[in-house]
């Protein structure tokens, strides 16, 4: 196999591998744009994974499974929204609590699913015409529906963020909530919606793991993906397009992790790769942010209150 076809095959596999990360990152980018950090991504994802698997087993309907996973992710996110937006508690700790909660409940619900063969699977749907393109066809257009939807969400979110009134509201709430409030934007509503959307996306990301990528239920199957999402959000500089790059980059690492095992490298050392890469990516982002004076939304992690301004 030539080097190019090897790289090609890694990239091709990297897209599905990066898809859960992509969903999670797009969701977290949106939430953080409104000024709320949700460290509960890992918990929302694993709940999405167990919900999707359970619903798929019960109904045999993949789309119902994905919708249910999204909803459960969203509902969990609302707990964090209530805690951090309404009660104004510490966002770091509240998000952590959400992750633990998700790991715990999913473990309990999922016990019955361990070892079950999946009842449904999302089959690849080659896009007519596009899938026949040389190189790009097999790389991008011979995947399952969730890959396409994830890809499509990138330009859609970009447009929403930068070209619509709604996006201006979202960004202004994350940058300067007091001013946004004065301009008539409902800060609380925008934040609640953004965090809820983040939960929906994390739920779908989890569903992808359990009913498409694995497909199976394994306790703790997110294995840190939710945390990588948080790092990718920073790497993405809160931009959906860069989020896409980051997600597929980590997807490639995931693929390489498995391929390199064949060369006799110790699996635990290979398992470190994504986490070492995460730290490197954060260092890179920090350097870049300092150079270009880019930064997080100014009101990130700051609860907003009208009364005590």
């Amino acid at each position, binding site marked *: 196999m030539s080097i190019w076809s090897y790289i090609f095959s890694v990239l091709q596999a990297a897209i599905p591998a990066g898809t859960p990360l992509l969903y999670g990152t797009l969701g977290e980018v949106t939430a953080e744009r409104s000024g709320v950090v949700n460290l509960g991504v890992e918990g929302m994802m694993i709940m999405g994974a167990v919900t999707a698997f359970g619903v798929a087993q019960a109904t045999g309907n993949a789309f119902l499974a994905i919708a249910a996973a999204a909803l459960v992710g969203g509902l969990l996110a609302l707990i964090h929204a209530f805690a951090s937006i309404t009660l104004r508690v510490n966002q770091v*700790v509240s998000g952590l609590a959400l992750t633990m909660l998700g790991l715990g409940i999913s473990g309990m619900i999922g016990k019955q699913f361990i070892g079950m063969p999946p009842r449904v699977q999302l089959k690849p749907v080659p896009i007519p015409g596009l899938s026949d393109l040389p190189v790009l066809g097999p790389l991008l257009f011979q995947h399952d529906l969730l890959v396409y939807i994830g890809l499509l969400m990138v330009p859609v979110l970009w447009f929403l963020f930068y070209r619509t009134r709604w996006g201006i509201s979202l960004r202004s709430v994350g940058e300067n909530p007091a001013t946004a409030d004065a301009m008539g934007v409902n800060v609380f509503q925008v934040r609640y919606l953004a965090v809820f959307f983040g939960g929906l996306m994390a739920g779908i990301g989890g569903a992808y793991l359990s009913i498409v990528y694995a497909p199976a239920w394994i306790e703790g199957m997110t294995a840190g993906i939710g945390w990588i999402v948080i790092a990718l959000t920073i790497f993405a500089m809160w931009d959906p397009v860069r989020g896409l790059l980051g997600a597929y980059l980590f997807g490639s690492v995931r693929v390489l992790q498995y391929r390199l095992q064949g060369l006799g490298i110790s699996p635990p050392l290979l398992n470190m790769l994504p986490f070492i890469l995460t730290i490197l990516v954060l*260092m890179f982002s920090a350097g870049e942010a300092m150079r270009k004076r880019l930064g997080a939304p100014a009101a990130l992690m700051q609860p907003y209150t009208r009364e005590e301004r």
Partner: protein
Amino acid sequence: MNSLPRIRLEKRLDTPRWLGIATPVFSVLAALLVIALIFGLLGVNPLIAYARIFTGAFGSLYGLSETVTKAIPLMLAGVGLAVAFRTRVYNIGAEGQLLIGAICATGVALFVPGIPDGLRLPAMFGAGALGGALWALIPAVLKARLRIDEVLTSLMTVYIASELVNHLVYGPWKGPGEWGFPYTDKFPLAAQIPRIGITRVHYPTLILALLAAVLAYILVQRTRWGFEIRVTGENPEAARYAGMNYLRTVMLVMALSGALAGIAGVGEVAGIHYRLRYPQGISPGYGFTAIIVAWLARLNPLGVILTSLLIGGLLVGGDAIQLAMGLPSATVYLFNGMILLFVLGGDLFTRYRIRMEFPGRTVVTPVRLEQEEVG
């Protein structure tokens, strides 16, 4: 909308003493109530489950001794985290620092010849503390130099440490006498921490933990450096204006919490297992559970003594119901997450007064206060 009463949070000028104790207690009770509800929904009888947890943890001498045994690592790591969180340094990586402590202790126990027997254990504790501190300095340096958020980096170092343990016990350190299990060889007698009678309470580590709690309390409340910690945590800007060295404080509290977590790791391998094993075999998430221990104690190092025993009991009871009722080990995380969430929410009552406002009536607020983040 306008006819509904509005809930308003009003800042308290000071927290009554009873409230500081009552809120964590009620928060835990409320969390247990919600968990009971979830148990019920999942078809587990909560009354039976809770009864088993209680009798499992506190109902026998064996249960009590196990509770104390599990409280040891929680207390050590929890004290360090209480100090770190007070400074608003979010070291989430205690689990990794604990594992590095375990690795360092194992290295000294098995692979460093020529240490006199009497010094073997002190050397192991020293190596564990140093290893944990250095491991914690990775996120600390990244925060200090590049302003990278320590939450993520400290968490990443947990995964890396965990894989490092895996690498060692499946690879270079795998004991030839261990029947193919992912364990190192057993520690020699001089490298084993003594226990009380037939229990697993490795008391020298317990003494270290209690000492750490008391010293940390004195440090935070009575020393100049503790004053800097408190000011930095409450108002980093003010700390900077007062000429306090923020970065130095961050590095020091990270190193301190890492060292204590590292000592906890030494205790687990040298006091319980007498060998390094796969990571989940050394610690079922003590480093993460210690976050709750610290928060439940309202970040008071002395309070950690009490809360670590409480949560230690919960872990022992949790093991009991897992065995008896066939629940997965992840159940512990349900308790952790729910309790943390409620304790966090409950904190609100100690900082704010909740007022109902009825439209049409004017509420007179006596003092207008500056905004302060709810810690």
